[in-house]
């Protein structure tokens, strides 16, 4: 059943709204209800991320609502992560910054069910270089705080973080990330920069997290019974 809706949405995403033969809204709504109940299977997730991250004619509201109910039923593959990370930044072929923010938020929330977290580590530089994009900065900081390891803390990164924090008048998210860095190298990152307010990177949506846990559990049981 989910397949049919996804195909309808994918088809509608390629044509301008005024040229569509049928409304896309019902499909989106049905799909979202289903996803909320049972979660998204890996193959379907791949297709949906394709629709979300490539240029399309769907309206922001539909895209956002699909993302909001994109509960992965099992793990998330590295391919999906690559597509999401590749959709970030500026360029004619990237989704709008609002959608990018929503994608990042989704990444934060599914961070613990990623099947191959090496992918995010490998795209560390790419994410880091997006810190100057104010519209998605808080989410980027949160992701970085989750994936930063000792080997990521390099002199040139510390430098650019400090100068960016200076330029933005000590953005709270940046201060939070600097504190993460300080945990790895307390002697290099000086106290001056990490003073003041810092965001603590709380989970963006605890309700969503609980629902995701339920779905994952139910899915695991279903697959075990088979």
């Amino acid at each position, binding site marked *: 059943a989910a397949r049919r809706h996804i195909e309808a949405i994918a088809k509608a995403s390629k044509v301008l709204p005024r040229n569509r033969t049928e409304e896309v809204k019902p499909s989106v709504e049905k799909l979202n209800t289903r996803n909320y109940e049972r979660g998204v299977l890996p193959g379907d997730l791949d297709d949906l991320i394709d629709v979300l991250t490539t240029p399309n004619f769907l309206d922001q509201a539909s895209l956002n609502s699909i993302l909001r109910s994109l509960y992965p039923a099992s793990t998330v593959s590295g391919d999906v992560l690559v597509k999401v990370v590749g959709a970030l930044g500026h*360029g004619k072929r990237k989704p709008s910054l609002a959608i990018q923010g929503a994608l990042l938020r989704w990444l934060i929330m599914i961070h613990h069910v990623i099947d191959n977290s090496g992918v995010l580590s490998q795209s560390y530089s790419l994410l880091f*270089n997006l810190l100057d994009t104010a519209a998605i900065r808080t989410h980027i900081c949160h992701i970085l705080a989750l994936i930063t390891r000792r080997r990521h*803390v390099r002199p*040139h990164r510390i430098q*650019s973080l400090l100068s960016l924090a200076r330029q933005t008048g000590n953005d709270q998210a940046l201060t939070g990330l600097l504190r993460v860095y300080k945990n790895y*190298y307390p002697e290099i990152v000086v106290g001056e920069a990490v003073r003041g307010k810092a965001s603590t990177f709380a989970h963006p949506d605890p309700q969503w997290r609980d629902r995701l846990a339920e779905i994952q559990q139910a899915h695991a049981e279903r697959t075990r019974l088979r």
Partner: protein
Amino acid sequence: ISELKQKSKSYDRETSKLLRSMKKFIDEHLAAMLAAEEMGGPVVGDMVDFETDDLAAGFNAQGRLKKAKDGTNQDKRQRRIDEIWGQPQEDESRDAATSGRDEATAAAADMRELTEALLNGLAQSEGDYSAAYVQIPRETAAARFLIRSKVAQFHPKDAMRLRLIDFGRELDD
């Protein structure tokens, strides 16, 4: 000792492999985009798929691609004064398609020379940061692109000098 030798050999192999793939990327993808930006077209990364033949047509003031017109190859780009007043250029007879390809090749060569100079500059400076700057002859799309992609940085007081951001340095090597 032999283990270390093996290691350094494998690093060398990896490095040359990476350099080769970078060259390929520059030639196949980046060159056309850089040439377009140089000619007043869209900034690199904004338009990803066009052919070198389209470059010959040039761009209008909004940076959109002009429709290719045959025969008329009016070069409206900025020139240095000595080019305008100096010897009349002899290559007016080139047909459009080749000029587009030339632009791309030139851009690729530019980019390759610049990255090479930057890498060498950093390697030779050995921790002395003020020595790592490379003098660039003029402002090119290649230099702008490297700055934008946060690979290189200008000298704070002199934008004719450029250095690579030191990715290699670690805190506990």
